[in-house]
């Protein structure tokens, strides 16, 4: 169940993210990472993904992390299609 977002609730200097940021991170974790899946039917564009993370200063490499998450999701849905 480990999610990349689980690792970013604590920033590199050991400080916890503020409540509003944590709330958004939790929302992202639930909505992007979980839920019913229809194989091969998740199509999202990443062009504006940095907009989610702008202002969330707990994330050091936010766009890279988001892309990593999305790549993992694509692999998962591809496996579902062929498996």
């Amino acid at each position, binding site marked *: *169940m*480990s*999610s990349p977002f*689980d*690792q970013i*609730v*604590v920033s590199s200097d*050991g400080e*916890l993210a503020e409540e509003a940021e*944590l*709330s*958004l991170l*939790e*929302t*992202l974790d*639930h*909505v*992007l*990472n*979980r*839920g*019913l*899946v*229809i*194989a091969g*039917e*998740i*199509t*999202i*564009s*990443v*062009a*504006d*993904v940095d*907009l*989610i993370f702008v202002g969330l200063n707990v994330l050091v490499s936010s766009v890279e992390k*988001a892309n990593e998450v*999305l790549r993992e999701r694509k692999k*998962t849905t591809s496996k*579902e299609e062929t498996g």
Partner: protein
Amino acid sequence: MIYQAVLNSQNPHSQIRNLQFDNSSMKRYLYCVAEHVSNFPGQLVGIAEHEVELVTIEGLVVVTSKFEGDVVPLTRDNVLLHESVVRRVFATTTPLPFRFGTLVRQQVLNRYINARRHALIERLLTVQNCVELSVKIIWSNWSERGQTRLQSSSLPDESGPGSSFLKSKREELFGNQELGEQAKEISEWLGDRLKRFVRQQKISVEPQQKLVLSSSYLVGRDFETGFRSELEALRAERPELHFLVSGPWPPYTFANIDLEFKT
């Protein structure tokens, strides 16, 4: 092919309309599926500014909106909009939320509902009248724990590169082992204390990181207060741990019927 769409309006009586969909090109953005939906607000605007509709397929209600295009932009607003639509349904019943970005043609949706109707109904029964609560536990004194591990090493400080390498590997191995044992103990303690409030749970342990564990619980709505009270008691018992609690969520973690949740 004609499907029934129930559009809640401002009128006290719901209007049931038969809408004819263009099956060849129509795409639908999916929010969630439920056994029934009541008091759904009329003219609720969803992703891409299309009205959210309730579509009944094989007796199940799919909360959806039309979508023109092939990809759903991953933006803060769209994510929050998805969540807010699901939460509107969640106010009166517990649905199975779709993952963000689920975009299908009508035929695919029909096939999916037809093929998985029994599994969906079974899962809806499992989550019936429940909420999801998430708990993350973080070491409160992470940086101090790191220093303690370094200082407890038996190797002398004046070491060559080979000894330094062995020293760091030893610390990594035994540090991880110790953390792993502690995290396992915390996981068992947490599960044992919360089990009387919980219908299902998913726990992931990550002792090498600042995060000890990440967990989600399916809790009956009537048990939420008791669950939270117990968590407060647990906080007081373990001041070395920091608890992050979120929810109530619609049951995202417990919704998927095709993919077992990987730990």
